[in-house]
């Protein structure tokens, strides 16, 4: 079991608001892999530490399996944590490190040995059991830290940016290992990261946070496709989403988006949301770079009513191998397009941008997605 509930959870440090958390309401289901995502200082680690008991909760209640844990000592909460620094005890061997929580919970020696051996087996640490942390590589230390948390068979795993000290290749590999481990043990996991790739690939659901406030909770793809506000839209996705500010012009059956000299129709779906904002409303239009391409001889021709064609001048071409990032300007608008690699374009070329608004979003003046407001 391992159900974690946050009821109006807040954290305040003295009078300043730094690192604080405000009114978090959330249920982490048993067996779920939940990712807390956000820039540094957004309060995600604080939230995790409140579950662990390393930080006091200043308001609200946290439940683990229906038990109020606000005032339960960290060691009695039945949670295990993997730290960014791994926090292995330097003076103990791998075996002693992994067995330490069991020893502290006064398990019999034979049982400790059995569980340590089992964990070492799962994590491929069998040959390293008598080494000390300083003799291990970063990846091995990471696995010892995982081992120390799984032997306890806790209700919840808490992981605080566990991959950020690994190099890129090892990070991908360890990511898979953690997912395999989760599939095998099925233990509820709350995972903190600032890396959107980790969040997208690992989380059953992700929680996007900013300045201590939860911005959005949902399945990774859903959050990506339906960002609640401009912050979430901009935080997820690489290169960043194109956000153009402009005004709505309502016409008989369609809405137009207008910025300076440039103006175009928004297509039926967006028009419905635009209508709810009203004529002349200031909005931001969000278009993902992958929904923009540069028209060329091989472009797929099927036009539809959510496709906008704009003449533009290319200002920057960045090949990243698999894709080509193209920056182009139209009037006062600047667009980033993610197009197919090897497209023969150069800086200064006059081209036509094909902007597909099917997955585009309109954000109101408060930054909130209008599709939410329209219901």
């Amino acid at each position, binding site marked *: 079991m391992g159900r974690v509930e946050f009821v109006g959870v807040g954290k305040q440090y003295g009078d300043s608001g730094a690192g604080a958390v405000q009114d978090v309401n959330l249920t982490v289901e048993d067996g779920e892999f939940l990712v807390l995502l956000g820039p540094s200082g957004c309060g995600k680690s604080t939230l995790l530490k409140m579950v662990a008991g390393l930080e006091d909760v200043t308001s609200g209640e946290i439940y683990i399996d229906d038990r109020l844990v606000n005032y339960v000592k960290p*060691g*009695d909460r039945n949670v295990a*944590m993997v730290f960014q620094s791994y926090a292995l*005890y330097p003076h103990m061997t791998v075996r002693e490190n992994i067995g330490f*929580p069991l020893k*502290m919970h006064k398990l019999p020696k034979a049982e400790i040995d059995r569980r340590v051996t089992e964990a070492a087996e799962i994590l491929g640490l069998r040959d390293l059991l008598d080494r000390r942390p300083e003799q291990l590589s970063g990846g091995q230390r990471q696995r010892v830290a995982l081992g120390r948390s799984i032997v306890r068979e806790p209700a919840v795993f808490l992981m605080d940016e566990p991959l950020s000290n690994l190099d890129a290749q090892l990070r991908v590999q360890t990511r898979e290992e953690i997912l395999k481990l989760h599939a095998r043990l099925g233990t509820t996991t709350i995972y903190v990261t600032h890396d959107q790739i980790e969040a997208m690939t690992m989380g059953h659901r992700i929680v996007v946070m900013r300045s201590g406030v939860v911005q959005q909770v949902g399945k990774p793809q859903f959050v990506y496709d339906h960002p609640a506000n401009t912050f979430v839209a901009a935080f997820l996705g690489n290169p960043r989403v194109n956000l153009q500010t402009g005004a709505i012009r309502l016409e008989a059956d369609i809405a137009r988006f207008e910025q300076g000299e440039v103006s175009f129709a928004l297509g039926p779906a967006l028009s419905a949301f635009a209508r709810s904002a009203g004529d002349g409303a200031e909005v931001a239009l969000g278009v993902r770079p992958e929904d923009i391409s540069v028209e060329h001889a091989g472009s797929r021709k099927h036009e539809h009513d959510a496709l906008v064609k704009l003449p533009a001048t290319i200002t920057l071409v960045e090949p990243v191998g698999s894709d080509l990032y193209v920056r182009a300007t139209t009037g006062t608008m600047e667009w980033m397009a993610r197009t197919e690699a090897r497209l023969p374009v150069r800086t200064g070329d006059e081209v036509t941008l094909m902007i597909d608004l099917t997955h585009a979003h309109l954000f109101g003046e408060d930054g909130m997605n209008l599709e939410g407001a329209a219901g």
Partner: protein
Amino acid sequence: MGAEGRALARDPQPKPGRFGGKSLYTIAIYVILIVAVFISLLPFGYVVSTSFKSTMSLFSYPPDWLPENPTLDNYRNLLNRYPFWRWLFNSFVVAGSVTAIKLVVDSMAGYAFAKMRFPGRDALFLVVLMSLMVPFAALLIPTFIIIRELGMLNTYWGLILPGLASPIGVFMMRQFIESLPSDLENAARLDGCSEFQIYRRVILPLIKPGLVVLGVFTFMTQWTSYLWPLVVVTKPEMATLTVGVRSLTSTFTQDWGLNSAAAILSMLPTILVFIFLQRYFIAGSIAGALKE
């Protein structure tokens, strides 16, 4: 270990033109060091030599560096006629007890100041810092009166207790412990450790170098302490080494040979301890304790 490695790392490719200057520089360094060591140790040489001289040859002029007829008389004399072993034992009991108690007490307080949250922490630590400035010598009179009221004159406790008040160890320990990553104690907290278990099983093993520094420092201070034992001890059998050795001189004539033998014997234990533990002294550990 690694001495050559470090030398190489410092200057991987000595420029050919500067090679001569480089070796001159090295020579200068060693000349300075040898002179300094010579000055530091010269008086010791004199004392060692004197301790083997017979009373007859003591005042030959000019003095000989090497005794003509080396004799162990002075040592025999010291050990047979004076309770030297008793003094040595007393010094060990006092310095050892103060050191052992201070290591425990100061590391506990240091842990609380470095890692725990409680009301009044910063104010209390400021008091500790302020009290570093209190000279023990100024508290001689009231401390004497307290120890006398407790009936502890001429006792080990009377010698030990006042040595435990000094807060410098708390300060050092706090600096050491603060430099340990908080993740470690947090991990231990989650692993089910009580605060005392964290202290005992995680903090203490990790500050061993700091404990050695504080231990050696405390032991040496107590071993060489003179003013307090002089005041609190009046019975010869409770005298510590410093007071005992001093009492050899308090008669009208000074027996140089006897005094020298006593000096050598009373320093031998500390020199051995220091040489054995000195590597801990550097290891950047004192520096760690000094960072504000």
